[in-house]
Every structure is written in structure tokens, then in C-alpha cells.
């Protein structure tokens, strides 16, 4: 069954969505959307370096994204520029350097559009193993770090005071982000990875009563978006990444429709009844 390229893409995409669900929730809660974008854009520099130095693509992309995130933390500590400006510099600088480097390497043929927007056809059996293997690793790490991650998202000082080592959780979170970006690149492409992180999480928010529910729900919504996007991509011969993002957006808008609102109002009403004095 996995001989069929479409089935391979679907298995890989769903595996990826299950991973990006919980991670995307933290990106939303911690307001790190732009940060995720910066790490994703640095992936192209990773691609260029991998070609130049002839090292493993995944390893190279992971290493560059990790270094960029650590660099950002170091620059933030110096406090000379706002995080916003720093992210803008790093994000576009790494993307531009990557593009320039790739154009210099005339001896390699590289499918730039595939890297930027994702490519279903490029998904191999090895990619599936990688996505599911890496995905399970990421999910296990998030489950293990769940409490310190949630607590330090609410308040790092509170987490620190009560012995949860928020800095360690933050570092682990950044490395997990780098890993997910490295494995997501082939499916959704460098420019759209953050969308797969944020849109399903934002869609899940209004249906969730706890962080745990939101994490699981955004995985499921992400998986639905991947499936819908890939079908659309096949049907209309569109690039896979943008198609998945369009499907995710469609689900997000669907959740905004009166159907969703009525559910929320009912929830609010029952809460008010329980809460007594609001």
C-alpha cells in the first residue's frame, strides 16, 4: 500500500500533524509564532550548508535551527534590540543567505520550490520512518516535560520557585521545535511550517477546556487539514504545503461560524450557572 505515493504522503503528513499539534499549542500560548517562523526560515540555510558540506540534510537543518534559536536567546539577554527586530533580522538574513548560497552552487540541481512549499512526490519510505520515528520522540519528550512546560508558560518564576527548572524546559522546547522543523520541511515546506503549528492550535482553542484537550484536539485538526490539503493537492495539482495550509484555514473559519459560537455560548451559560456570581 505504501508503494502509492499518495498513501505515503498521507501517512507522513498525518504523522507530522500529530507532532505539530501539542508543539503548536505552546507556540500559541508562548506567543512564539514569529520565533517559529525565524527557525523555519533558517532551514534553507541548513539545506544550503548540507549541500555545501555534504552532510545529512536533516542533521544540517536541525543544527542550524537549533543554533539560530540559541543565538536569539543570547541576543535577547544582551537586550540591545527588541526581540521583534532581532527575529526580523535573523529570519530574513538566514533565508537570504540560504538562497544566495544555493544559487552559487551551480554544480547541484536543487528543487527550491519543493523546499519552500513542500512536495508530496518527494516523500519516500525513509521519510515516513523519519517522520514517525522523530514524531514519536518529540511527543514522548513533550509528555515527559509537560508539567514544567505548562507551568513555565504560565509563569517562569513560579515554576522556578516551586522547583520545575523552566530554563531546562525552554531549551528542550527549542530543540524539539528545531527537530520538528527539520522533519516537516519536506511536507509543508520551509515558508509554511509555522502555519501548520499555529492554525490547528488556534482552531482547537475554542473547543478546549484544558491545555491537554487543546493539545490533542489540535493534533486531530492538523491531521484533518493534512488529509484535506493532500486530497486537494492531488485533485487540483497544487503544491502540497499551500494546499494543507488552505485546508487548515478552512477548518479555522468553519470553527468561527455560528455553529461554534452557539456551542461556546451554551458552555458560557452552563459555566455561569455553576459559577453563580458572574
Amino acid at each position, binding site marked *: 500500500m505504501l508503494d502509492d505515493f499518495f498513501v505515503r504522503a498521507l501517512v507522513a503528513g498525518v504523522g507530522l500533524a500529530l507532532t505539530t499539534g501539542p508543539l503548536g499549542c505552546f507556540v*500559541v*500560548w508562548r*506567543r512564539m509564532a514569529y520565533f517559529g517562523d525565524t527557525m523555519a526560515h533558517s532551514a534553507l540555510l541548513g539545506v544550503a550548508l548540507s549541500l555545501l558540506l555534504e552532510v545529512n540534510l536533516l542533521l544540517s537543518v536541525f543544527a542550524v535551527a537549533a543554533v539560530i534559536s540559541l543565538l536569539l536567546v543570547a541576543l535577547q539577554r544582551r537586550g540591545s534590540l527588541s526581540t521583534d527586530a532581532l527575529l526580523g533580522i535573523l529570519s530574513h538574513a538566514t533565508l537570504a543567505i540560504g538562497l544566495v548560497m544555493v544559487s552559487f552552487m551551480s554544480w547541484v540541481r536543487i528543487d527550491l520550490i519543493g523546499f519552500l512549499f513542500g512536495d508530496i512526490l518527494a516523500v519516500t519510505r525513509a521519510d515516513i520512518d523519519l517522520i514517525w520515528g522523530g514524531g514519536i520522540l518529540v511527543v514522548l519528550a513533550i509528555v515527559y516535560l509537560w*508539567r514544567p512546560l*505548562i*507551568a513555565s*508558560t*504560565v*509563569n517562569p*518564576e*513560579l*515554576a*522556578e*520557585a*516551586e*522547583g*520545575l527548572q523552566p530554563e531546562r524546559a525552554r531549551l528542550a522546547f527549542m530543540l524539539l521545535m528545531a527537530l520538528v522543523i527539520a522533519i516537516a520541511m519536506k511536507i509543508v515546506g520551509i515558508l509554511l511550517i509555522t502555519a501548520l503549528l499555529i492554525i490547528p492550535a*488556534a482552531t482547537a*482553542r475554542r473547543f*478546549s*477546556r*484544558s*491545555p491537554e*484537550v*487543546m493539545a490533542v484536539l489540535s493534533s486531530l485538526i492538523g491531521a484533518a487539514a493534512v488529509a484535506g490539503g493532500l486530497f486537494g493537492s492531488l485533485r487540483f495539482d497544487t503544491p502540497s504545503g499551500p494546499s494543507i495550509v488552505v485546508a487548515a484555514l478552512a477548518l479555522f473559519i468553519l470553527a468561527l461560524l455560528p455553529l461554534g459560537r452557539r456551542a461556546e455560548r451554551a458552555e458560557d451559560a452552563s*459555566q455561569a450557572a*455553576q*459559577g*453563580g456570581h*458572574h
Partner: protein
Amino acid sequence: MLQTNTDRSNPLVALSGVGVRRQGRWLVRGVDFSISPGEIVTLIGPNGSGKSTSAKTAIGVMKADEGRVERRPGLKVGYVPQKLSIDWTMPLTVERLMTLTAPLSGREIDAALTATGIRHLIRAEVQHLSGGEFQRALLARAIARKPDLLVLDEPVQGVDFSGEIALYDLIKSIRNTTGCGILLISHDLHVVMAETDTVICLNGHVCCRGTPQAVSQSPEYLRLFGARAGQTLALYSHHHDHTHLPDGRVLHADGSVTDNCHPTDGHHDAGEPAGAGRAGPMRIVHVHGPDCGCSHDHRTVAGSGENAGVSRDA
């Protein structure tokens, strides 16, 4: 009262000569205090005087750049930070907030919420709580984990006056039933919780320390706050040996002016008990009135010489 149970020989946390420096500026310097089991220590002082910094240093959230902080090994802290805003994107009910840093049984959650009087809000989202309800939820969360040391940074902010009395009564009963040590930061310079064992007034350093006098002994305050408050609130009289000038320099009781005030610069008499050593006009004894609005840098300086820096405006 549990005061007799306070064992000061083995404190939960002890700070000695602690200084914290950030961006080339000392936030606090020369801070000494300790908290023992069953003891309530209240930090007071004007804005930016280093109350939160000192408390955070005590529990290890901030690192001291000089001096020593000794914590009892395995010390379990319950912390209510001064500012905590929960992003609306995170769905969090009061019940889920309770287990933020450690798992708890349903019974423990119930008990803590009942104690703080918000048991009925267990399923409410924290973003929908009022200021007072949220403070109670944070306090419930901190006490539910049965800490050895409870650190409360302005726990009565956003709470109305009767709610403030109720919260102080609750803090008292937590101390009395669990015997934990409590470090309380008060937003008020003059009125502190009556059960406070030690008041420490900070202004970049320890300005003065002492014990509060019950409000019920002051008919003026009793009239202002009512009899019920008289059981819970207390007055703190400041005993300072120096004045902070508006330009940031310090006028000492001996008439000299320095750029800052360190315990080591020889101008302080902090180590001596009140009334000992230099007494009389050289010591500022300033009992604040309810409307004096004093923040330690207000005192008039009447020329130089013997009377410099001394005023009585009780």
C-alpha cells in the same frame, strides 16, 4: 498562637548581606533576614525598594551577586507572584490551575478551594475570574501543595477592604494550622497584618525592622478601620537613622551625605537595639499618620548641624 513554636535556631531560609545587581545597578544591598517555621515576616517599602527582588532571591528565583542565601535542603515553596497574567489562548480552569506545578488529589484541591472560599468556582476559567477571585485561586494553589514556606507577593492586591481582612485571617489560620513560615510582601507602608512577627522595611537595603503594634491599641485607626479590622491589621512605626534625599543621595543621622547607603559605610546604627547608643535628637522616630503619604524621602532637612535630618511629624 503558634509564636511559641517558632524555632529561630533552624530557619527555613536565611539571607545574610545579600545584594542583587542588574545592569550595573544595585537593586538591593545588605539584606539580612530569615524566616523560621511558623514565623510571619512582612516586607514593606516604597515602590522599587527591592521587596520582590529580596523575596525572589530568598527562594532562588533570582541569584544573589553578593552575600549568602541559605535554604533548608528540600525546602518546599508555595509562591504567589506579584504579577501573573494567563494568556487567553491557554484554556485553564481553576481546577487545572491547582495542579500547575505538582499533582494533587481531588480532596486536596477541594480543601484548598474551600479554605479560600472559591470552591464554587472550581470549573470556571481563570481568565473569567475577578481580581479578588484570581488572588484567592492563586493562594489556594500555593497552599494546596502544603509548602514549608509560603511566599506571598502582595496577595491582597485587587481585593477590597473586607476581602483583605478575610485573606489576612486566612493567612493567619494557614500559619496556625500548618506551622509553615510565611514571607509576605505588603503594598502598604504602615498597615501590616497583625500576626506579623517581624516587619522589615526595605529601601534598597534594610531601612529598619521591628514588630508591629496592634491597630486595636490606636483609637484613631480603630475608628478608621472598624473593630473587626483591629483584630487583623497592625501599625508599623518606622525607626530610621537616615533619610533618602530626592536626588537619590542619602542623608545620615550624623549630618553626612553619601551617594548610597550600605550597611558597611559606617553611617548606620542598624545593629544596635532601639534606644541604645546614639539616642535623643540623633535618631529619627517617625510614627506615620494615616494620611501622611510618606515614602521615606519626604522629610524636610532643616539646615545643617546638630539638628540636620531630624524631624518629628508624628
